[in-house]
């Protein structure tokens, strides 16, 4: 990247004003975008009485974690008052295996579609792509029926199956597009060296894949974690994933609206996705822009 500030030449007044303007703009927009998070955090740390009296932008006068404790373990969702925690753990239990299975299957698909091309591979890929474009609503009824027939309605397994199936077209697309840029000669060399389909995948392809694995995992994890429609449609009661539970928690009104609990619950529900981005974010950009793998 060219560092324009390090280029030779005199600084004029105009340039300095330009700099100041740029940083001022950046500061304004950064504040603007961070404001909601700030409000959520500060409100979640206030006692309810303060929320009713004070301005929502001001810093909390008194910091209390009561709202967090309540949101995690005591808030009422529907008729049960166990907080978000059971739904949180349930969602993790559904999402983690679904992410792993759909990513692994997408990897194998992408690898087969690019490196072991068979007759009709393009057609198969086209049909899989089609899966990316099928609207969620269109598969609700057939899927409900399928889950009923399989006897796994309103179970973590059933929800995981839906997530996995719906994820495969996307993961396949990601891996396929990444593997297209890996030279075919590598596969030929491995074949002559005596490696078969899975040995080549494991020893040659997987070690080249971390960037796209990260992209896929982030994509799948956030998509599944934040899903509302499938969760609302295919589960109920204690089987609801965290986002559906959050919605119900916020909508369960018994007397006074507890904004601090609502905000704390929202942040709790968002933590895992934020965590995934923070841990793997730098690979995310790298993976999205990664081009050829030099042989």
């Amino acid at each position, binding site marked *: 990247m060219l560092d324009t500030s390090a280029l030779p030449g005199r600084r004029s007044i105009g340039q300095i004003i330009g700099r100041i303007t740029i940083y001022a703009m950046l500061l304004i927009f950064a504040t603007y975008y961070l404001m909601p998070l700030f409000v959520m955090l500060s409100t979640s740390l206030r006692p309810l009485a303060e929320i009713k009296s004070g301005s929502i932008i001001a810093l909390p006068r008194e910091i209390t974690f009561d709202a967090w404790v309540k949101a995690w373990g005591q808030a009422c969702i529907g008729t049960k008052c166990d907080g978000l925690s059971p739904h949180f753990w349930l969602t993790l239990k559904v999402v983690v295996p679904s992410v792993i299975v759909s990513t692994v299957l997408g990897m194998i698909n992408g690898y087969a579609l690019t490196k072991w091309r068979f007759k009709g591979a393009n057609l198969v890929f086209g049909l899989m792509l089609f899966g990316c474009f099928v609207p969620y609503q269109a598969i609700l009824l057939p899927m409900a029926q399928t889950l009923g027939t399989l006897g796994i309605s309103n179970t973590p397994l059933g929800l995981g199956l839906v997530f996995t199936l719906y994820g495969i077209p996307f993961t396949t697309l990601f891996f396929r597009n990444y593997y297209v840029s890996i030279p075919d000669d*590598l596969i030929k060399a491995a*074949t002559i*060296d005596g490696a078969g389909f899975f040995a080549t995948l494991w020893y*040659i392809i997987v070690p080249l894949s971390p960037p796209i694995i990260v992209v896929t995992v982030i994509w799948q994890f956030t998509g599944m974690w934040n899903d509302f429609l499938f969760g609302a449609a295919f589960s109920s009661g204690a089987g609801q994933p965290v986002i559906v539970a959050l919605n119900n928690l916020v909508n369960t009104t018994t007397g006074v609206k507890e904004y601090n609990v609502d905000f704390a619950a929202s942040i709790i529900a968002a933590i895992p996705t934020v965590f995934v981005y923070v841990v793997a974010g730098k690979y995310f950009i790298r993976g999205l822009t990664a081009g050829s793998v030099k042989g």
Partner: protein
Amino acid sequence: MATLRISDIRKKLGGNDILNGINVDLEDGDFLVLLGPSGCGKSTLLNMIAGLETIDSGEVRIGDRVVNNVHPRDRDIAMVFQSYALYPSMTVAKNITFGLQRRGASKAEQAAALDHVAGLLQIKPLLNRRPAQLSGGQRQRVAMGRALVRDPKLFLFDEPLSNLDAKLRGEMRTEIKRLHQRLGSTIVYVTHDQVEAMTLASHVAVMKNGAIQQYGEPQQIYERPANMFVAGFIGAPAMNFVPCVLTQNESGQYCATITQPDDLRTKIELVLPTGNTDLSARLGTDLILGIRPEGITRAPSGADDTGSFDLVVDVVEPTGADTMVVFNLGSKEVTARLSPKDVVPAGQSMRFQFKMNEVSLFDPDTTNRIEMGE
């Protein structure tokens, strides 16, 4: 080490003939170069020998075994790719021993083989690096190491030097030649570079449009090209083709008579080394005279008229060791490779002489060589 016998191999792809009945016979220790322009089917043929592409009809035999339906892994071959195809995630050592490991060789065997090959190719200091940390020439060596380590029956090289710069290419060429001399392995080598073909091969198959145009020893192909395509493909600068008419002089010798495009329609009569060949059927017909740039010399002073002629030099291109001199002969541009001390400046006239025992004669319709006796 083994023999390789390819009989009547054919391949069609989408209605196009990719390979059109290829026959090749290699003895133990032969170095075959498949030479041709891109799209001539040479890489396809190599992939078929490797087992990476299917064979429509015909037979590939390595040693005593027909391998048409044998998996590449079991053909006991090794291949060096143009892109080197080194595994990016593995160290050099892992790259080289991967094939052994897949075949279940013990750690000790792998280490011994690695040590031997690394010594042979002088890549011992590189063993713990990854391919991305190597220069082009080093990657090339590692790719060869990966092929050598298994001591296969047959080596396949797919344009291994074309990604290297000119100097390195020359060095690696010598290296490959030295390795071949030392190991005596059977090698099939694909290239579009005629210099590689000439320097490395014990046999060259010049290919075009999925068919072998000529198969033979390099020198034979150079001296007696089977047709104008082969003649033009081998040698740089390319062979000169001059239109001429077959005539007979007073003493009954066959001559190639070239008509200059000047006002006088000057005729240049060159006596052909026809020996006992009877070309009477072609008397008076148009032919193409092929003469290599190095087959044209400056006529010594006092040379007689036969076979030498005065012409004006058009362009002079010094290359250091030799100087290329371009002049017009029979309305064609002809290049001569002369010693710098023989060259006159452009625009001046000089006396040229053809080494008539080195010329070739082609039929302009079929472009095939017309054989002349010794």
